[in-house]
């Protein structure tokens, strides 16, 4: 297990915190770590800062992520990684679509050639506000408290996705599935960062698998062409016991 002390804690929203720490390892946008909160559990986290220092952005759900939120400067992070296949990085025009804490894994991709769509349930859930250094930023909230009222799949056509060399998407599976449908006709140059329960992170336990591939090894980033062929994406997944359940759209 790698360990590193937290250098800085940034409260992004009431339920979301960024933790910065030193780690010399080279990490690419889209890769993740398995972060161990002793006594609480181990969870996958995308690297939201891949430069120096490194950082993760954590939303509070259950015990491990809630405990992470309690941590601050000087506390020790335990983790292993980096794991996973990164996004394909390009220099040209990018459309970046992040919903909820999904924007965390996309943040390291953002540059002056990027148009970024950030969505959240409500204004207070929008993370990195004012900190994203892009060509254009479009905010959306489900309830309209900030920016456009609506969901990314509903407004994506307005930014003319075909004008972008590459499109990157991360967020809840239902949202990503709908974006996939909205990008009808496009079969390449778009990548999605998927999410499944991840127990091992090393391609052994099968908990993160989709269509026979292990997201921890051959994901979490997958290309749009592959996703169109998927029998499980947007349809079913296995719960923590391995039981197949429907994905709510």
């Amino acid at each position, binding site marked *: 297990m790698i360990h590193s002390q937290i250098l800085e804690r940034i409260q992004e929203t009431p339920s979301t915190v960024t933790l910065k720490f030193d780690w010399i390892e080279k990490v690419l946008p889209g890769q993740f770590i398995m972060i161990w909160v002793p006594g609480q559990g181990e969870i996958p986290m995308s690297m939201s800062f891949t430069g120096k220092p490194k950082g993760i952005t954590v939303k509070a759900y259950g015990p491990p992520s809630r405990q992470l939120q309690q941590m601050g400067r000087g506390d020790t992070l335990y983790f292993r990684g980096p794991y996973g296949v990164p996004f394909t990085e390009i220099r040209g025009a990018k459309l970046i679509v992040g919903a909820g804490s999904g924007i965390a894994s996309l943040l390291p991709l953002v540059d002056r050639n990027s148009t970024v769509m950030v969505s959240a349930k409500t204004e207070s859930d929008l993370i990195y506000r004012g900190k994203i250094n892009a060509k254009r930023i479009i905010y959306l909230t489900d309830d309209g408290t900030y920016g456009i009222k609506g969901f990314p799949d509903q407004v994506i056509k307005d930014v003319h996705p075909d004008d972008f060399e590459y499109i990157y998407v991360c967020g809840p599976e239902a949202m990503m599935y709908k974006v996939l449908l909205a990008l009808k006709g496009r079969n390449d140059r778009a990548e999605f960062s998927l999410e499944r329960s991840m127990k091992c*992170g090393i391609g052994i336990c099968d908990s993160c698998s*989709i269509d026979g591939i292990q997201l921890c090894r051959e994901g979490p980033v997958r290309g749009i062409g592959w996703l169109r062929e998927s029998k499980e994406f947007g349809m079913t997944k296995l719960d923590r016991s391995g*039981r197949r359940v429907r994905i709510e759209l």
Partner: protein
Amino acid sequence: MLSQSVAGIVLESPLMLASGILDQNGYTMKRVLESGAAAVVTKSIGVEPREGYFPPIVSVFEGGLLNAVGLSNPGIIHIGTEISIAKEAGKPVIGSIFGATPDEFLRLGSAMEDMKVSGVELNLSCPHVKGVGAEVGSDPALVKQIVSTLKGSLSIPVFSKLSPNVSSVLEIATAASDSDGLVLINTVKGMAVDIYARRPVLSNMYGGLSGPAIKPVGIRYVYEVKKELDPVIIGVGGIETADDAIEYMMAGASAVQIGTALMKHGISVFSTIKKGVAEFLEKEGIKSVSEIVGVAVQ
């Protein structure tokens, strides 16, 4: 040249996927089969769904892996979906089951038979879940009863997977000798402590060791049981290369299972090993892989 029949199950090669590794999701099992495995063994299935332990469930160390997945499984009534998907590959699927009593094993075995698996593998050896696994598997009388109950009721082959965490493997192997074959070995009990966090890494504290570290232990069990009792054996534990698979077969295994190697080598390990075994046989002038089974046993 590579095809091999084990307790009547015809395998295109002696290489099977071990229980518990990439065999929970039907699509994964299907892909593993399509990538060169001759058969898959499902994750061990019990009567009720189990989430298993909270992560950390694995800890990698030099020479292998320590795991305490905790028998997470969807329960026997939900595994059918996955088995059907896996069976689309057209190759044998073996159902692994665990329980506490002969009755439980029988319920599970019968359900598996109904799902048209090619055989059942009794997990008598999981080292890290109380009341099932190794606790059952270190009681010779109970093992004998479970095996004879299943053999009396099922028509598909019954394999018994044994634990290496025992004083005398021969005693347990003898108790399980009504099985159509023995699967040797399950993981070796172990543990890892993180010295900075000052606590065991696995949420379950104890786990099971697998990978290259345990290969000599597996070879020893296969050899010793083959030499003393001569049953049909499926060898498992630390196989990463064709040489490892051949070593197990020469020590007495009719087929082998591969698990932890998928961590380092990915699913392509099956085709790599298959190719390697074929090359070895050719180079050594051996016509059929069955000829090497047990040749090292003296």
